[in-house]
């Protein structure tokens, strides 16, 4: 923060001297104080992506290269065509900084913001997902406090607006102790025409500009610049930046907006988020190639005496800006009146390509509409951190515990155990679309009423893997989240991501970002997955200890299932059926739960990703689906394949006989084999008469697959073929540990 003098005023900004000079030069005059404030916000990291843009260019152009992508990065949300005249909009965003300070309202307004982004695309928000990160939970009142209120904030806001939370994930790791991550994702569904009719642009001169929703207050001025800084002592004083959400008003805004779009008179639509009115108006006109003239006195404020600066930069929640055809003004206003939503016509668009804001006769803002979007780029240095070599060379100690004890400990660990404590608090059924509900499968599955199509959605990342190898880690995240989609029977269609990293001005932190982006770009190009949007949250760095969070590029994938019969579920179904393991198990324990839970070790050799292998596995699984051969499917994730098998036993109270002699090849240690987190593996259930057909097919297309056992009705997992290390575990005991872990930690 530094001070800049404008006329008689001094203002705190994050702009650099160079930037201020550049602004003066382009305008050929001194900017007004409001203009400086606008530049400050719009050129902040959060809005301008000044550090990240050079890297994000590595992503393939989704709109150009994929015919079903209707809107790619740069829009409020990615939009894809899913056939039958329907489109899906989806996006993910971070609300880390506000949630670290005020978990309840921080998380709630995060949900509020992501809903608005989807609504902007003209479609109805139908689902939410919530990937979260906190410091470890056990004996840690701070983490427990954060988890409790973040979840309550998401629940209260999502439940009240009637949007089901259909999935999410959580990681607990000490690197998030002072910088928790609260990412939120939303999916919208609508007709393609509705999306086309309401772009977030003002293309036509002469249209009315209407502000609708909550009143404008002094709260949250400078929220954006706040998110573009690290959390320091200073943040205490930034506290007014924490917003109070109002889900009830949001619900009315959703209904009023969708009804207004249906009238056909809405020509543009934009939510007011970071940077408030100034950001929304300049994007509407700048991207649309128009200008506008705005009367600031028409903006309805919560308190009297607010100055132009405060009005233009306020980030008060629950507001939308509409661009409306002149002939439709009354019709649209009548919709707002029905919902008793406050509104005001604040100006009109014109063809001047200049955004002009007036207070009586004085101009407050007079900026070329494009000026704000042409932010400078910040060149950042990158450097591989020194500590990595040491970490990567760490060896797995010799086990002192029995394999059985280890499995019990793993299943109860914070990162593996059931997250029911969280998702029970979310209404995951409102909207009557949820077919596979939270906790019942690898991904959430929603029906599209009126068709025989189903949407599958999942989010996630493995921060421990990314910490050791951001390039392969980011790829591994994609493999895992796509695996969740595939396991439910769906085909992955498109991806959005949310990059959570440290301070980009620190070369080591920027190195993580750079490599993660490269990993995502390479993988998606190879496996033909369009990247249709993203969000970057930098400065997740602890100022005191000078450590960044573990690199966390969260991936969100949506997929499609054609036909109810093609939905695949996770639980084992039938005793006597065979259990197959798809994919190769390598000695890859770096960043595993096994290392962290049993030895408190962070290092080792993390999983690598071979795209060609992954591709043939996915094709293979799809082929088995086509032949109707898979009865249950679950991808393998944290803790290794035994954990996946246990999770598949729970629902129908079944067990498994595992004979591992034909897969365990003794070149690796038993623990390396059992608890490896090699990515891209699946456990599938098949009828035993079909096993041969499946193994033959796999051989033909060179996919690693092993029959590892069969399902039994006795709720035990009996493991044999491990020399003298055979053991047997009790499914009920496992389930108890799995279910009770978080409730036991949370309820003091």
């Amino acid at each position: 923060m530094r001070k800049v003098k404008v006329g008689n005023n001094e203002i705190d900004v994050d702009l650099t001297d160079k930037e201020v000079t550049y602004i003066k030069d382009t305008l050929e005059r001194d900017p007004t104080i409001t203009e400086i404030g606008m530049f400050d916000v719009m050129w902040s990291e959060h809005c301008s992506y000044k550090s990240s843009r050079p890297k994000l260019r590595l992503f393939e152009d989704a709109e150009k290269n994929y015919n079903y992508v209707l809107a790619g990065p740069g829009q409020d949300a990615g939009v894809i065509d899913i056939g039958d005249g329907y489109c899906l909009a989806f996006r993910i965003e971070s609300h880390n900084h506000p949630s670290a300070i005020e978990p309840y309202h921080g998380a709630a307004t995060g949900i509020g913001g992501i809903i608005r982004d989807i609504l902007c695309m003209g479609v109805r928000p139908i689902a939410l997902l919530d990937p979260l990160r906190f410091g470890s939970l056990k004996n840690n009142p701070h983490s427990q406090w954060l988890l409790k209120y973040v979840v309550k904030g998401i629940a209260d806001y999502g439940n009240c607006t009637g949007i089901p939370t259909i999935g999410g994930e959580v990681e607990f790791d000490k690197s998030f102790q002072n910088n928790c991550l609260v990412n939120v994702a939303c999916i919208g569904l609508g007709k393609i025409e509705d999306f086309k009719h309401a772009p977030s642009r003002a293309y036509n001169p002469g249209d009315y500009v209407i502000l609708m929703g909550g009143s404008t207050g002094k709260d949250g001025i400078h929220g954006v610049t706040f998110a573009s800084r690290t959390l320091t002592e200073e943040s205490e004083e930034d506290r007014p930046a924490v917003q109070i959400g109002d889900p009830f008003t949001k619900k009315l805004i959703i209904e009023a907006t969708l009804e207004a779009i249906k009238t056909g008179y809405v020509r543009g639509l934009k939510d007011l988020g970071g940077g408030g009115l100034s950001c929304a108006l300049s994007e509407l006109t700048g991207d649309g190639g128009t200008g506008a003239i705005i009367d600031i006195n028409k903006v309805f404020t919560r308190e009297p005496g607010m100055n132009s600066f405060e009005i233009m930069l306020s980030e008060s929640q629950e507001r939308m800006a509409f661009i409306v055809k002149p002939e439709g003004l009354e019709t649209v206003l009548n919709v707002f009146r029905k919902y008793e939503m406050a509104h005001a016509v604040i100006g009109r668009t014109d063809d001047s390509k200049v955004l002009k804001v007036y207070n009586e006769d004085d101009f407050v803002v007079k900026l070329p509409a494009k000026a704000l979007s042409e932010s400078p780029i910040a060149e950042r240095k990158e450097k591989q951190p020194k500590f990595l070599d040491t970490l990567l060379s760490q060896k797995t100690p010799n086990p002192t515990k029995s394999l059985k004890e280890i499995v019990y400990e793993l299943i109860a660990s914070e990162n593996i155990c059931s997250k029911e404590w969280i998702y029970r608090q979310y209404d995951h059924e409102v909207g009557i679309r949820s077919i596979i509900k939270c906790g019942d499968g690898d991904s959430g599955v929603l029906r599209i009423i009126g068709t025989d199509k189903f949407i599958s959605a999942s989010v996630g990342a493995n921060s421990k893997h990314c910490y050791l190898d951001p390039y392969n880690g980011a790829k591994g995240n994609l493999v895992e989240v796509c695996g969740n989609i595939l396991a439910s029977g769906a085909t992955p269609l498109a991806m959005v991501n949310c990059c959570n990293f440290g301070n980009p001005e620190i070369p080591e932190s920027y190195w993580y970002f750079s490599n993660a982006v490269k990993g995502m770009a390479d993988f998606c190009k190879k496996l033909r997955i369009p990247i249709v949007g993203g969000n970057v949250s930098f400065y997740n760095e602890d100022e005191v200890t000078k450590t960044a969070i573990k690199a966390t590029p969260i991936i969100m994938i949506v997929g499609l299932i054609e036909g109810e019969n093609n939905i695949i579920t996770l639980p084992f179904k039938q005793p006597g059926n065979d259990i197959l393991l798809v994919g190769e198990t390598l000695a890859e324990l770096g960043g595993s739960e096994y290392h962290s839970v049993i030895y408190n070790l962070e290092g080792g050799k993390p999983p690598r990703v071979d795209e060609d292998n992954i591709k043939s596995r996915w094709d293979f699984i799809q082929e088995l689906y086509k032949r109707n051969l898979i009865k249950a499917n679950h991808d393998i994730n944290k803790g290794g394949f035994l954990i996946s098998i246990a999770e598949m036993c729970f629902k129908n109270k079944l067990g498994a006989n595992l004979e591992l002699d034909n897969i365990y090849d003794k070149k690796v240690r038993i623990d390396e084999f059992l608890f490896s987190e090699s990515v891209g593996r699946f456990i599938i259930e098949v009828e035993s008469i079909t096993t041969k057909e499946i193994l033959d097919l796999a051989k033909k297309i060179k996919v690693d697959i092993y029959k590892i056992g069969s399902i039994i009705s006795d709720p035990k997992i009996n493991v044999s073929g491990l020399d003298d290390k055979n053991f047997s575990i009790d499914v009920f005991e496992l389930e108890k540990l799995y279910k009770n872990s978080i409730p036991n930690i949370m309820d003091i």
Partner: protein
Amino acid sequence: MTLKSAARDPVADTIQRDLIAKKGFDMVSHVRSGQYLKISLQAEDKDSAEQIIVRMCNILRIYNPITQNLNILKVTEIDQ
């Protein structure tokens, strides 16, 4: 515990707009909402009672000082 005055109070606003004003109580100009706790405890005197309460509210994070104000409305002595 009430929300700080700079913060919005959607609960109170809705109560005022959709209930109180619509039902003709237009003499009401302003509403603020909050939570209330009545706590009985044993202490030396009023002052130390108040101190314990404040400490308790902070330790249990009964209110969040970032968005809320804590007000001790009344401390009374009860004989036992």
